[in-house]
């Protein structure tokens, strides 16, 4: 049992879930401003759920959010956000955006460059964790670093189950901001019984010495504006493993022909060889809506059998 992090620090939070027969309950669900958790109901047996929020709907430069999640025996948890997480360059930018944020001091050490988020999740062999946030939208000049670590375990009979969606957009397209952020970095580590099995590390950083209307990485991503990574691990035979298998079948059915201009929605799938029913799906879309629809209708089709129809519709609305 890992020690709880010091969740009295600004931006820190911890969730501990235990299952009592047909219900997973929050033994702990605490977050310190500007982080906030709002538990909600899934109406599905044994599946607890909560929304993760940042006051002001986003993160400021200097904000650090650290979450520890612990799912004990048989506990299942669904975590979501309420709307896209916005990454602001600074307080002035967020105020101009009409979102006033006041931030309490309280963290020791030097001020970090940009906003950062870390998640440390410990999942028991008989537990399932679904992390399905909205995409991250980074504003002009902002810096964002995310590090998510998942510690899955097995006990000979069962292995932890995980659904992780990590996605982002090119920025506030409506304001003409397309790939105007300074840095977006997202790192995911998945360990099984202590051994690093899967690592995904994406870094988009503007290498121009002075700001230019086109960041150094913008042209390589054109014409797509939304990118998603979906990792699903569901050993055994259950509702979630059927979702995975459905996704694999959809990919295996693809027969891709040569096109002159890039398609609006493209995707690929890799089987994660070291776990049963494990896949990593990568998606690129010219709009966020397209990626969302793809996730709903193809990659995560039948997820309603796992999280309930109500939650499924809410997630992809």
């Amino acid at each position: 049992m890992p020690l709880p992090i010091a969740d009295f620090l600004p931006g820190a939070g911890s969730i501990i879930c235990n299952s009592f027969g047909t219900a997973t309950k929050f033994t702990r669900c605490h977050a310190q401003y500007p982080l906030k958790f709002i538990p909600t109901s899934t109406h599905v047996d044994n599946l607890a759920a909560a929304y993760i929020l940042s006051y002001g709907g986003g993160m400021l430069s200097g904000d650090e959010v650290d979450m520890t999640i612990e799912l004990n025996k048989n506990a299942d948890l669904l975590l979501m956000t309420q709307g896209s997480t916005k990454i602001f360059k600074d307080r002035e930018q967020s105020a101009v955006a009409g979102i006033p944020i006041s931030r309490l001091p309280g963290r020791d050490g030097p001020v970090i460059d940009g906003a950062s988020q870390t998640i440390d999740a410990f999942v028991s062999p008989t537990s399932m964790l679904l992390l399905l946030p909205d995409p991250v939208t980074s504003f002009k000049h902002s810096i964002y670093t995310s590090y998510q670590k998942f510690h899955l375990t097995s006990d000979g009979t069962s292995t932890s189950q995980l659904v992780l969606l990590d996605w982002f957009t090119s920025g506030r397209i409506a304001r003409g901001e397309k790939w105007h952020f300074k840095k977006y970095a997202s790192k995911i580590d998945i360990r099984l019984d202590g051994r690093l099995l899967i690592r995904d590390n994406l870094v988009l950083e503007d290498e121009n010495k002075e700001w230019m209307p086109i960041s150094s990485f913008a042209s390589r991503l054109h014409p797509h504006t939304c990118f998603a990574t979906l990792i699903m691990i569901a050993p055994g035979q259950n509702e979630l493993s059927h979702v995975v298998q459905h996704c694999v079948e959809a990919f295996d059915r693809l027969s891709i022909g040569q096109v002159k201009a890039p398609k609006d929605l493209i995707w690929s799938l890799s089987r994660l060889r070291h776990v049963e029913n494990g896949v990593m799906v990568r998606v690129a879309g010219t709009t966020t809506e397209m990626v969302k629809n793809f996730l709903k209708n193809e990659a995560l089709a039948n997820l309603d059998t796992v999280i309930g129809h109500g939650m499924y519709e809410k997630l992809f609305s």
Partner: protein
Amino acid sequence: MMAASVNSPFSADDKSNWLLYLLTDSALPTGGFVASSGLEASFQAGLIPSASTLPDFTLSAAHSFAFNTVPFVRAGYYTVDSEDPIAALEDADATCEALMIGNTVARRASLAQGVAMLTLHIKCFSPDDEVVKQWKKMIRAGKVDGHFAICFGLVCRQLSVSIENTSHLWLYLFTRTLYSSAVRMNIIGPYEAQRMLLRAKEGIEDVVQKTMHLTMDDACQTNPLLDVCQGMHDRLYTRLFNS
């Protein structure tokens, strides 16, 4: 011994030059012929609308490739300095595998070329190299995966190539493969390919400099669009290359 300075990638040593010429030969039997460095899938996905967009594509592909693999080339290079080189190789290989497992196509290319590189070294350069022989044995026995970047770094080190030349060569080979694949796919002609390859020098060297000091934990990809496309390779209806 080589005394390469950072400013001139190739030292003045005759022996090292001969070796480097050999390592860049496209007839070198390391199985690279069937790999397109992600070009085929990207081209079929419509990401390279004309020949003139190829240099930009190449630079951005090389950027992501360098950030992803140079740390492992370096790790492979320095394993022989540790007390237990095999353990150091295992550690580097396991981290590399974790990064590669999410890209079936790139992984396949990496494993095929990794063991081919070791075979080349043993058969042609140093039949008595115990570390390389042991590492190859472990790969064949299925105990470890044997990723290309690490094998490449290891072999270059055993051949006394400098670390600067090793990293430079690694990126050169990637770029060269991309342009020769483009010729075979009829995207550009052979003269155009050579002209573009020559002009790529500055951009590629810049990328090598940016990645020279990265650790394995820093290894990352910088082009998610390319990543999606490369994963599509096995679903292409018709294809010339294996990856």
